[in-house]
């Protein structure tokens, strides 16, 4: 078997690569580590107790998440890492959070300004036309705001109105002069490209039965198939990129997930979009005499400089909403408002840490079962039950996301002594947060507390020495970063390997730094831009 371009992975990055290349007439073979998830069998509107009956009948919800028993990863003793993977058509976009934020030149040039890490080899102006196209394709809704931290857009669908709790949060932020804008999410608030709009059930995390939010499986792959230029190989777990005598990629080695059989496919060009961690694992395992420590890794930067976002969670109850009873706060699933980064603003004290954070607010209002509320109420008995019911509509949840600095020692490696079911070395993830994250965390907690105190909210007691386990944001970056200098980066400004011209890496691993923003919109835009370049290189015969 051979193909002009082999794309590894079918999520946001690989899906976009396949979509764009096939539209341009390039023949693509897409290797997907799993199979299609059938929307007809999603449990989108299944309440927990309804699921009981379905389970008893032998029915199962779709198994989106990769079982670590099937594909383990290693962590050092005492340094846990939460790695969430979806192997199957569309990858994590089946169940993603849908927050779609443009990065700004504050993010692209962060290293130029504070000296930490390396700057991006591109600027906002390079990516802006792709953000426009990506937002239109992905059906992102949002407001008319525009700021240095969060560039505006004329390409958004109308934002949904705020819930009660979010109205209160807006007033508190106004008073504190903390910016709050409409959330930007890839939920369709209007009919979109032949799909019905969001029906406001709030169950996006179970997969959408009407495909009314952007996901690669419904909004990129079918369109690529329609061109006649796409072939898909399901259950293809890629192990290595193969290299010829000249040091060019010659193909891909993969294993059939059902039979374990080894397969090889020849390729003129290989595009990796297998998610940051798996793409990095594949490249590190692609060892040859030419590249003894992983493909295109002469710089020793491959696997290093892991970065992501730090999350903490603060909850409170608004007495103003006590006893009002249930209100349907489902909306488009997540919050309808967003606090963009503000710590750099001239009217703010200069922070004692680098970079910044934004704040999200999912599960504000009566969106969940009541478990979250009840956990926060002391006591037991009839009075406890009444206090839970009283607070049920009054929950506000604050979730700051802060930029974790890239550090060379926070890294992914492969362990030759430990292999998976195919005999391929496992990845080892070694990540810890540092002093900058601890200082930022304090500012996050202080800000959340300030907002809730302004509302005279009852604040659920928090342990301010805690944060989510590394990896929990599911926004992994940095391990195969872009840069101008081939000594300090793995990819060039078009996601092409400095050392191996016919290999491109288009997923989140290419980001030199994470910013505080959810990355999928930027991944789609970046993959679109990279594959525009790739198609032109193929057309001109340079590749």
């Amino acid at each position, binding site marked *: 078997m051979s193909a002009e371009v082999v794309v590894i992975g079918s999520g946001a990055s690989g899906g976009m690569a396949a979509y764009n290349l096939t539209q341009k007439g390039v023949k693509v073979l897409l290797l997907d580590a799993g199979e299609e998830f059938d929307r007809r069998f999603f449990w989108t509107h299944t309440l927990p107790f309804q*699921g009981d009956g379905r389970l008893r009948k032998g029915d199962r919800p779709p198994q989106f998440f990769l079982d670590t028993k099937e594909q383990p990863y290693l962590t050092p003793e005492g340094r846990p890492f939460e790695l969430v993977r979806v192997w199957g058509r569309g990858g994590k976009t089946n169940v993603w*959070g849908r927050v779609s934020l443009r990065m700004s030149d504050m993010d692209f040039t962060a290293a130029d300004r504070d000296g930490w890490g390396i700057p991006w080899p591109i600027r906002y102006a390079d990516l802006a036309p792709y953000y426009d196209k990506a937002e239109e394709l992905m059906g992102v809704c949002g407001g008319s705001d525009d700021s240095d931290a969060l560039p505006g857009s004329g390409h958004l669908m109308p934002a949904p109105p705020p819930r009660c709790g*979010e109205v209160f949060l807006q007033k508190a932020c106004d008073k504190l002069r903390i910016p709050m804008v409409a959330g930007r999410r890839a939920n369709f608030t209007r009919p979109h490209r032949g799909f019905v709009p969001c029906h406001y059930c709030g169950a996006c995390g179970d997969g959408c039965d009407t495909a009314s939010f952007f996901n690669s499986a419904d909004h990129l792959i079918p369109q690529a198939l329609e061109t006649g230029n796409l072939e898909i190989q399901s259950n293809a777990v890629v192990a290595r990129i193969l290299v010829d005598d000249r040091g060019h990629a010659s193909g891909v080695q993969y294993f059939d997930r059902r039979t374990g059989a080894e397969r090889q496919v020849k390729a003129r060009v290989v595009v990796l979009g297998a998610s940051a961690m798996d793409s990095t694992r594949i490249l590190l395992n692609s060892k040859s005499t030419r590249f003894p420590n992983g493909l295109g890794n002469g710089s020793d930067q491959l696997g290093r400089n892991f970065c992501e976002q730090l999350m903490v969670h603060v909850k409170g109850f608004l007495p103003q909403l006590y006893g009002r009873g249930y209100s349907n706060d489902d909306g488009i699933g997540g919050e309808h408002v967003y606090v963009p980064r503000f710590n750099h603003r001239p009217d703010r004290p200069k922070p004692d840490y680098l970079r910044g954070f934004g704040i999200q607010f*999912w599960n504000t209002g009566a969106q969940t079962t*009541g478990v979250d509320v009840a956990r926060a109420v002391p006591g037991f008995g009839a009075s406890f039950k009444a206090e839970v019911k009283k607070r049920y509509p009054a929950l506000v949840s604050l979730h700051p996301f802060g930029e974790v600095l890239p550090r060379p020692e926070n890294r992914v490696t492969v362990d030759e002594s430990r292999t998976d079911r195919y005999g391929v070395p496992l990845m080892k993830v070694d990540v810890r947060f540092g002093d900058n994250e601890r200082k930022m965390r304090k500012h996050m907690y202080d800000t959340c507390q300030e907002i809730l105190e302004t509302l005279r909210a009852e604040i659920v007691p928090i342990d301010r020495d805690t944060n989510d386990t590394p990896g929990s944001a599911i926004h992994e970056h940095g391990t195969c970063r872009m840069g101008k200098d081939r000594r300090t980066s793995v990819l060039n400004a078009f996601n092409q390997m400095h050392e191996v011209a016919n290999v491109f890496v288009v997923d989140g691993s290419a980001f030199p730094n994470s910013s505080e923003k959810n990355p999928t919109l930027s991944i789609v835009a970046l993959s679109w831009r990279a594959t525009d370049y790739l198609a032109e290189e193929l057309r001109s015969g340079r590749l």
Partner: protein
Amino acid sequence: MSRPIDRRQALRTLGAPAVVPLLAPFHPWVPRQEGGWQPQLLQPSEVEALAQLAERIIPETDTPGARRALVHQYVDFVLAQGDAARRDAFRAGLAWLDRRCSALFGKPFAELDAGRQDELLKRLAEGAMSEEAAGVTFFAAAKQLTIEGYYRSEPGMMEELRFQGRTFLAEFPGCTHPEHRNWKIDG
């Protein structure tokens, strides 16, 4: 992706106490049934003590309590699927409860009247007495499981909290209360 995670894992975390806030806040699904139920883990006497304990935590009022919500079935299932340390700790806690009740009142927990049961549980909830430290930890775990079992059940969600979401709306109205639009923080 925040997940409210459970920023995220369907049956993968069955039995684990972790909250996955980013994705799928309703997981895990746990089977419960009215008739013909057999415990997977607990002995009948343990089931009865657990059912009574859960009912003291969330009693029947104008809506059903934990027993009618079959919280004991939820707890048995979750413990049976979960790790051994958690399982053993919970059963040791039930045994402690009976020992303590026998020492204080001459009878195991399940044979006491509700007033006596509440007398002990009140101290455990407040964490007051050092010789009852084991019970304090156990009560916190039992309360946690009772909450998960009850507020995910049909009586807990639909009768007590009157949940009406996960439905189809043509438009999402947002907050429609004029008093919230005009509400002033200083007012």
